[in-house]
Structures are given as C-alpha cells and as structure tokens.
C-alpha cells in the first residue's frame, strides 16, 4: 500500500496541510474532516486506489491510522 498516495488523498480531499496528516488525525477533530469532508475523502481514496470500500469500513475509517489499515486490506485483495 502506497502511504504517500493515501496521504495525498487526505491532503487533496480535505484540503489540509501535509503536516497535519498523522496517524492520530481523527474524524470530527478538524473542521475539514466532517461528514462532507468524509464523503470527499472516501471518493478520492476509491478513485486513487481503484477500490470499493464497504459501508462498514467507510464508517470505521475515522483516523488516518485506521485508513492505512483499511486501504491496505482492500489493496491486498486486488
């Protein structure tokens, strides 16, 4: 799994600084990552990694750290 690519997806979709993308970055703790930001983010990740994330994982993906694990899981399946 290309962590750099995932990081870019966070930066682009949420429109935040690269420095802010750390494992502990959490949904709802920055104003950019609200429910709207989350939709943008999921869409961006799916496009960049060409994957289809299940609803459960869409909900579970609430930190950058979790996102890495989840995206890795899907990338391995491909």
């Amino acid at each position, binding site marked *: 799994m290309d962590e750099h690519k995932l990081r870019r997806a966070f930066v682009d979709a949420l429109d935040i600084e690269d420095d802010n993308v750390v494992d502990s970055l959490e949904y709802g703790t920055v104003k950019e990552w609200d*429910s709207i930001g989350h*939709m*943008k983010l999921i*869409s*961006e990740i*799916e*496009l960049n990694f060409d994957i*289809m*994330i299940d609803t459960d994982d869409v909900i579970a993906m609430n930190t950058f750290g979790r996102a890495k694990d989840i995206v890795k899981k899907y990338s391995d399946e491909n």
Partner: protein
Amino acid sequence: MDYTTLCPQQGKLEVVNGAQPLSPFHTDILAFIDDLSQEIIKEEEFRRFPEIIAAGYWLRKSAIQRLKHIFIDRGGKQRVARGLVFHLAPSNVDTIFMYSLFLSLLVGNTNIVRISFKSNKNIQGLLAVINRVCANHISVSHRFLIVNYEHDDTINGYFSEICAMRVIWGGHETINRIRSIQIPPSAHEITFADKFSIALINAENYLAYNKKEDIAIRFFNDAFWFDQLACSSPRLIGWIGTSEQITTAKEKFWSSISAVIAQKEYESSPSGNMDTYVALCQYAALDKNTTIPDSHFPSIKRITIPKTTELSFRDIHCGQGLFIEMNFDDLKDVAHITQSKDQTITAFGFSSEAMKKQLIPYLKGGVNRIVGFGNALTFSHDWDGYDLLNEFTRIITVEDALY
C-alpha cells in the same frame, strides 16, 4: 410550448424523444456518471451545500458498481429500459431530481425532468456542472432534458402523451392534478406522495452511549438539511423507556441539539418560524393533553403529544424546526400509531432484530425504511416501498426451448 431548457444547454426535445433505449448500465452512461460524480465532489463551491456533495458521493463509481450487482442479483439480466420517462420533481427537496433522473438514465431510459425551481444557488451551480460534463459526453447528453415551467396542462399533457413512464413527486394536490392528465394506456406510473417520518430513541441506550455529540450532529443533518421539509426528515420523536429515563434523556438530547444548532449557525426563516408557531398553537388548541416544554424557542420548537391523541398531527406539521414528542412503552406501542403516510424511521439504540420482531409485524401502515441516525436523507434505490431499478425497467421473459 413555453418551457425553459436548463440542461443540457443545447438540449432539444426531438433529439431526446428520438433517442433509443440503451441496455442497463451501458458503459457510456457509466462514464458520464463517473465524471459527473467526480466533478460534483471536487467543486469547491458545493462545500456549502452538503446535499449536493451527498448526491455526488451517491453517484460515485463504487456505489454505481454496487448498484449494478444489486440489479443483477434481483434478476436484472432479464430487464430492459422502458423508454422515455417523464419526471416531475418535488419542490421541497431540490436535489431529489438527480436521483430520479440518473437512476432512470443508468438503466437505459431517456428522460424529461421538470423542476420547479431554478434560482436556488445550489441548483444553479449543479446545473452548470451537469452542463459542463455533458459537453464531453455528447451521446449521453442526447438522452435527457431538464426543463422548468410553471405547471401548464398543455406542456404536462404533451410530455405525458409521449412518455412510457411518468414519475410524480409531490403533494396530494399535485399528484391528483397530474394524474388527471392521461398517459398512454401501456405507460407505467409511480408516485411519491407527501410523507411523514419518525425518529425513535431508546432512552436507556442513549443515556449509556458516550458519543452524544456525534448523535446530535447526525440528527441535525437528518432534520435540518432541508429545513425539516424532506419527507424523510424526522418530525415526530418517539421515546422508549421508563419515564425517568426519558426525562433525563430528553434533557441531554435537546441540549446537545441546541449546541449543534448554535455551532452550525442554523437559523430558520422568519416566515418558517411563524409557520411553526402557528402549528404549535394549533396542536395545543386541539388536544388538551399537550405540553410545550420550552417556550423560549431557541431555534426549535417542541411539543409533547400523548400517544393516544386523535389529532391528525401529520397533516398540521409543516417542517421548519418543529418536533412532536411522544413517549412509548415499547416498539409494539409505536407500531400502533403508524399509518400509510409514514415513511422513514430513524432509530437509535435498537437492534434490527427487534425492529423485525417487535415493530414490523404490528405496523398499521406505511413505514418503508428503518435507518440509523444520520442516514434519514441518504437516498436509496429502494424508496417509498418501490424498487426503483425494477420500476424503471420492464421484464422480458424468454423460454429456454423455442422449437
């Protein structure tokens, strides 16, 4: 005929009317919808309009793929498009036309969509994006026409005459009036009437839950994105639990909602505020057992109505920030007050098993969606009891042995 073509810019009725049906989930349509979804999600301007981002998200590639699997699982291989579909979009939820149109387009139909609003900022922006995407998908742009006109029997009559299917979203008056205009005998019709929706909260589980702010945000989205005017936005809040649990839960719940309203800087309009005050007084006047727990009106109005009421409370309600509260002993108790107008139950603190066993068997009518908090407005291909992928197509049966 005096209508304005909003989309595609150079759209022509003859062209759309002459286009042939495509097979469901045709690659040209998929490519168009994929581009459209990306353009919507990336559009900076739409950050202010979450309902539009939600529509773009709903149309994203993976979601459409999932839809295709569902279509096939439900026997889609035997199904083909119907032809020209005439959609009359609702005025209360101005993004609904997207779902109605693009689902129908996706399964191969050609489409005429009448929308009743054109000056809303969000819709203007959205139409501009659709027009932009159309420029790169000429063949698909020949398959739909979004128009605007004041209701006019001649125009409605013409579109009805040439359509293979008519989809009416609207109040009872609209539906009755449109229904008096004939469609061809073999044409299909579905209607989406005014509906009423309910939120149910298990007080005990709510009190035990530690992310109350999250619940409040989700409820806020459900209720206020369309000023509580969407059919699926909760208007009645049903509480289940002992009276002590309910009292405490209510207090915590409404104070967290007030906090979110303040944080989001949500304000109802002055006229909306008057509408809700009138409704509040009307409820109070007609049932002597109602109580208004907070008369300071901090952005929302609440009224507690006994579950035994004979008020036709669904018809008096006019959205815009008014919540009826009722206390129930259990889910079966809730089922007893349901009726055909009810659509969505947004629930917190229950298992789906409980819903299936204790609520659904006892329903008096209505209720065709039970979803979690935050999902009230999430559109689904199954809507108002219709399987839309199914409705928008027809079935062709072919026997195996043809000799």
